[in-house]
């Protein structure tokens, strides 16, 4: 079977970005949500660095993930010899109470990330977001500077073209680095299938339901599905017109809830 030219191109570009990040930004860490995207990103890091992941891998933990997620995390961290760091997020009571309830879990992660950057001093954080997930993420840069308070200045982003990335940012600020920005949801699954990347089996249907997007158990709902192989998931995605994050309650709290979360520092 001929190689999938589309996946080859996506992979080669992500590897290029990961190598730029490692060379030009230090100290560097990667966020791992244990979902399909950031697990694919981990795999790409192993590709870029010939098997090893040469930086800490951080989970922002709310202690609200499904048990299967924690099991998968520990198995992979051991098998891939990851430098796993678990950053506990502050309690819900400590976040902005004007946010709609379902957005508060995301706000907890935002605070967890700010704390992490504060105490670990990371200059760059690799994050597995994609442009097709959500309209505000579509406007991201690959190397996206964040201010002292982790704010995203969407109106004043640096130019980014011809493989040139802004890697030099002022003291006290940091970069969010997005090596998967140009991938789509179907791309991720096709890549999982080709590369045989392990993933948490909550994505497969059980009793007529599966998780399309994995978030905290109190704010994520499974979708109707009978897909029990990657091929079936891909077939389902190629016909569905439901958005990927339909099961994420926080996105739909109000018209601008996701944008508010992101400008305040959410991933």
């Amino acid at each position: 079977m001929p190689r999938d030219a589309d996946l080859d191109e996506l992979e080669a570009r992500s590897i290029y970005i990961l190598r730029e990040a490692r060379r030009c930004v230090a100290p560097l860490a990667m966020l791992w949500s244990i979902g399909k995207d950031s697990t694919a990103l981990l795999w790409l890091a192993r590709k870029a660095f010939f098997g090893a992941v040469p930086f800490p891998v951080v989970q922002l933990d709310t202690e609200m993930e499904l048990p299967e997620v924690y099991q998968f995390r520990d198995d992979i961290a051991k098998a891939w010899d990851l430098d796993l760091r678990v950053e506990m997020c502050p309690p819900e009571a400590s976040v902005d109470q004007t946010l709609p309830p379902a957005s508060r879990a995301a706000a907890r992660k935002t605070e967890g990330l700010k704390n992490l950057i504060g105490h670990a001093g990371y200059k760059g954080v690799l994050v597995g977001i994609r442009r097709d997930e959500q309209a505000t993420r579509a406007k991201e840069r690959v190397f996206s500077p964040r201010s002292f308070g982790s704010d995203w200045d969407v109106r004043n982003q640096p130019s980014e073209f011809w493989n040139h990335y802004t890697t030099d940012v002022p003291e006290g600020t940091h970069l969010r680095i997005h090596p998967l920005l140009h991938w789509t949801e179907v791309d991720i699954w096709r890549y999982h299938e080709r590369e045989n990347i392990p993933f948490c089996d909550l994505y497969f249907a059980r009793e007529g339901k599966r998780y399309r997007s994995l978030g905290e158990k109190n704010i994520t709902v499974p979708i109707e599905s009978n897909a029990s192989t990657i091929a079936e998931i891909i077939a389902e995605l190629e016909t569905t017109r439901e958005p990927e994050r339909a099961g994420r309650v926080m996105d739909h709290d109000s018209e601008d809830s996701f944008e508010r979360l992101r400008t305040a520092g959410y991933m």
Partner: protein
Amino acid sequence: MDRSLRVAVLGHVDHGKSTTIGRLLHDTDSLPTGKLEELEAISKRRGVPLEWSFVLDALQAERDQAVTIDTTRVWFTWKDRRYAIIDAPGHREFVRNMLSGASEADAAVLVVDAIEGIGEQTRRHAHLARLLGLRQLAVAINKLDAIGFDRAGFDRLAEDARALLAGLGLEARATIPVSARDGDNLVHRSARTPWYDGPTLIEALDAFENLDMPAESPLRLRVQDVYRIDDRRIAVGRIESGRVAVGDTVVLLPSGANATVRSIDRWNAPVAEVAIAGESIGLSFHEPVFVDRGDTIAHPEGAPPLDYAFRAVVFWLSEAPPVVGEYLVAQFGPTSARVRVAGIGRALDTSSLADVATGAVPQYAMLELDLRGRVQLPLDTQASLPATSRLVLMRETDVVGGGFVESVATRATNLHPSGHLVTRAEREAVHGHRAAVLWMTGLSGAGKSTLAMALERRLFGSGYNAFVLDGDNIRAGLNRDLGFAPADRSENLRRVAEVAALLAEAGTIAIVAFISPMEADRELARQACGSDFKEIYISTDVETCEARDTKGLYARARAGEIADFTGVSAPYEAPGSPDIAIQTRGRSVDECVDELLTFVKQAVAPH
């Protein structure tokens, strides 16, 4: 599966780019469930007619202002082909975002409003299309309903668009009459344009090809990093063009070292002894060559020429114009080089299409920049290898321009063509040393003439052929027609530089001692003298110079008797990176000349 066709949508603000995209998504049945209802609800709540552009303009701020703030991207599939649409904003401030989005495009659609016609942004975006090398273009004349689907009106606009593009060496493959809001000729052929028999927009897109990285061109890989794994050093990077195979002899530039490819390294990928353009790989070599980030790997045949100076065509992104003499950083992917702006050629305002003064280049102008590195660079040109001719210009940490290398220009070897039957090499062989122009710059009283004369004496005593040009011998004769107004001072230096260049051609070490306070004048001198030019900064501080005041000039300047006196009432632009700087404060003449002599002897040592 094939890669998606990446299409940038360009055009003036409010001419309907986002509407075109939103409606295209709807008509290709690509909108997610509930999106249309969501749009209807939002539009109703705001009391406006249904706005297709809301599909893309998802940010709250954009809905409020009804302009697209940043580049964004949406995907759809049509007849088994995937498309990625890049929405490029038309609002004036956001051109750099547009560049960020459109730089990856395979093709572009230029949207023109039927009522307003070609706008400022239409022209600017057409220039960007040229700069980005976008050759697959379609023009959509939008809002045709507003002119009653009038054929003659459409033909006039189509001709305007054709003329604009032709002026840039571009040609649209299709010019399509559309009403994006109603979907005319986007996906469905319109009954309202019976006179039009060209393609619909989707048919025009379908005819465009994916532009893959050029596998059949000469090999170029710019090294991103070097990893040590086990006993091997692995140079990693992405092949930008051509192909490389195990066993190939390659050359590392700029060092020029040859090496043989020992392995092509990938992780968890099919083993292949060859890699082609587009792949991110690792390379190890049999020989223990030194390789580092920024090196270019090529085959010895088909390697790019190495040179210091080149002319770039640049889209200028900064509000602060380029200044002759300033230093910028040119980035060719991971290859980075400090370059001096040696000159500004033609500059064009991309909205009015008028030539503008090169001394005050406005933001978003397109201009020719002569750039000069301190080390040799491997240089491909737009004509020879477009992908690797592209560069991004940085000032400190800001991106100030993007463009391509248009031509490589070596001045030193061809500046003084002449019919001499005695070559310069022969003259230098007789003298036993090479010639040079030692250009001493510094404040009045810094010690230039004193050091120049002492250096000339010491060089002569050691068998070197050297001669000093200074104010006394130049202004007494050659330049006695010149005064001290700024224009005269520049002309004075221009002539000095030309004389110094001729002395160097004659095999002599020319020692030039002039204040030469302006970087631009010194730059012109550098150009006149080519690689012979050595900038020597006599960096004595102004307090020391004023305390010396051997000619009493500082006292007179302070008293207001001399206008525009450098260091007192006129600026001195210190060299950014001189070949050598000499601080004279608290040091003897001999000490300083010793230091100079070491430098000069090395600079003029025979090859």
